[in-house]
């Protein structure tokens, strides 16, 4: 069996989530990856070196540049007949493209798998992760998105795949056009793959107060995340949201500050290795999942934490 992985990349780099999708695909058979975009030679080169990849399909064309769903889904539909499985990481791109391609192939996609049981059978969370469903697909071909937090990323080096050019398709249907992006810029590690994540919630009170988290994140090499309430209130940008309908993270250490622990938030972080909660309400549900809970006012605790971390261990 052969699986095709639509490989996510940003700023010329293959994302760790994409390499997690490669790991999931490797459990199904031989792995080919599809690299799409404009002037993507270097990315395709890098893809040949991912451990476990046998072949890289390169679709280098302007129409794939912004990863619009319409042309990308059309491309997947054209390539799919040679594959038993077509996968992508459950990123904004994967979630946008895979279901569209699935519908065109008359396939029911399987979203956000967290485990591969066999070639037909997969485990996926439902109800904000409060239940895990094991589902078997009767479709001849499976279209799948992969929850990256549940699969180790395949090593970026070690492979020696060949590159095969894929002809660009027509931009049909030509119904969408990229206008602009407004991306958050940060020197911090990527939230989805950081080893340490510190998230602030409504308890932070405003965006300015997130500055109290920054030196701590610097000291720990952490990414900064947030609850929906903090994003809705405009304290931080939308891409900070952790949860059922935001980003799913599973770092070694997750620190929740001024976050109550609603099920929708827990859905995005409860697979973290170690969870710390700082909340002034001893009854907050976040303490039920926290390995270490500190009942305290965050405005006192954060400066103390900064000072304590500055001390030599």
């Amino acid at each position, binding site marked *: 069996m052969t699986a095709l992985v639509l490989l996510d990349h*940003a700023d010329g780099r293959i994302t760790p989530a994409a390499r997690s999708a490669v790991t999931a695909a490797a459990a199904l058979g031989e792995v080919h990856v599809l690299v799409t975009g404009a002037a993507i030679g270097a990315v395709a080169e890098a893809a040949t070196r991912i451990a476990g990849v046998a072949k890289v399909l390169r679709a280098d064309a302007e129409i794939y540049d912004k990863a619009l*769903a319409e042309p990308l*889904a059309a491309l997947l539909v054209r390539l799919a007949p040679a594959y038993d499985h077509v996968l992508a990481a459950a*990123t*904004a*791109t994967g*979630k*946008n493209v*895979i*279901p*569209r*391609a*699935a*519908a065109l192939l008359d396939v*029911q*996609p399987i*979203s*956000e798998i967290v485990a591969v049981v066999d070639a037909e059978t997969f485990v996926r*969370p*439902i*109800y904000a*992760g*409060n*239940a895990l469903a*094991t589902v*078997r*697909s*009767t479709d001849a071909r499976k279209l799948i998105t992969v929850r990256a937090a549940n699969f180790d990323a395949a090593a970026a080096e070690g492979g020696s795949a060949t590159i095969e050019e894929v002809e660009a398709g027509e931009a049909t249907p*030509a*119904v*969408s*056009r*990229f*206008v*602009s*992006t*407004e*991306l*958050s810029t940060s020197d911090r590690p990527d939230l*989805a793959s950081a080893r*340490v994540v510190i998230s602030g919630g409504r308890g932070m009170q405003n965006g300015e107060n997130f500055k109290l988290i920054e030196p701590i994140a610097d000291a720990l090499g952490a990414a900064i995340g947030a609850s929906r309430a903090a994003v*809705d209130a405009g304290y931080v940008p*939308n*891409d900070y949201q952790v949860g*059922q*309908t935001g980003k799913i993270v599973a770092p*070694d*250490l997750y620190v929740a500050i001024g976050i109550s622990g609603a*099920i929708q938030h827990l859905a995005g972080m409860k697979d973290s290795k170690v969870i710390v909660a700082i909340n002034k309400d001893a009854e907050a549900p976040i303490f039920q*999942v*926290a*390995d*270490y*809970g*500190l009942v*305290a006012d965050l405005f006192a605790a954060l400066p*103390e934490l900064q000072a*304590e*971390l500055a001390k030599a*261990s």
Partner: protein
Amino acid sequence: MKLLVPVKRVVDYNVKVRVKADGSGVETAGVKMSMNPFDEIAVEEAVRLKEKGAATEIVAVSIGVQQCQETLRTALAMGADRAVLVLTEESPEPLAVAKLLRALVDREQPGMVIMGKQAIDDDMNATGQMLAGLLGWAQGTFASKVELSDGVATVTREVDGGLETVALTLPAIITADLRLNEPRYASLPNIMKARKKPLETIAPGDLGVDVTPRLTTLRVAEPPVRQSGVKVGSVAELVAKLRAEAKVI
């Protein structure tokens, strides 16, 4: 322009579901059901477009059991003009839902379909993209802002790195994200009025769609439970434990 807004009846977002002892699914008997929160946002967006004069009629659609009528009445109370229930015994999969919606789109000829980005029960995040694919329409998923002018919808999308704006030639599919708007509560007079608005019931067969599922659920299980942790007395103790015990910093 006519707008089609699909709405799903789901377990209320405040309910922490329990897995059935026999592993066949989750307990829904006696559990509070509501309109999928993302669909409320979709209805709200449609109503705002109508209030602005950009839309003329809003048709709400639900696919599922008889009680989905309540969900449709909620949409009508929020401002939809009429409703269609596609009556099924269970809630069909996204592929079947997308096919049913395509048939309704053929019948109703809307200029836009606005729907939630994901249902909070199966968490599939697929139906809008699938409907767009089947229709060959443009898709503006995870929308946090929609502007219409001259047959084009300019949609700001919430993506992993921030925001992305795309221009879609109408007709198009929009899927709503959390920050598109804050849905209104239906007023009592509007709830009363909604009772008199037309609600039509049809069968999947009337639309020529086979809703046989492609996925078989073999079992549903509880996720692993986290061991309950400890409360620490001070920041110093916390840092000491993270260093010496958990060894994560």
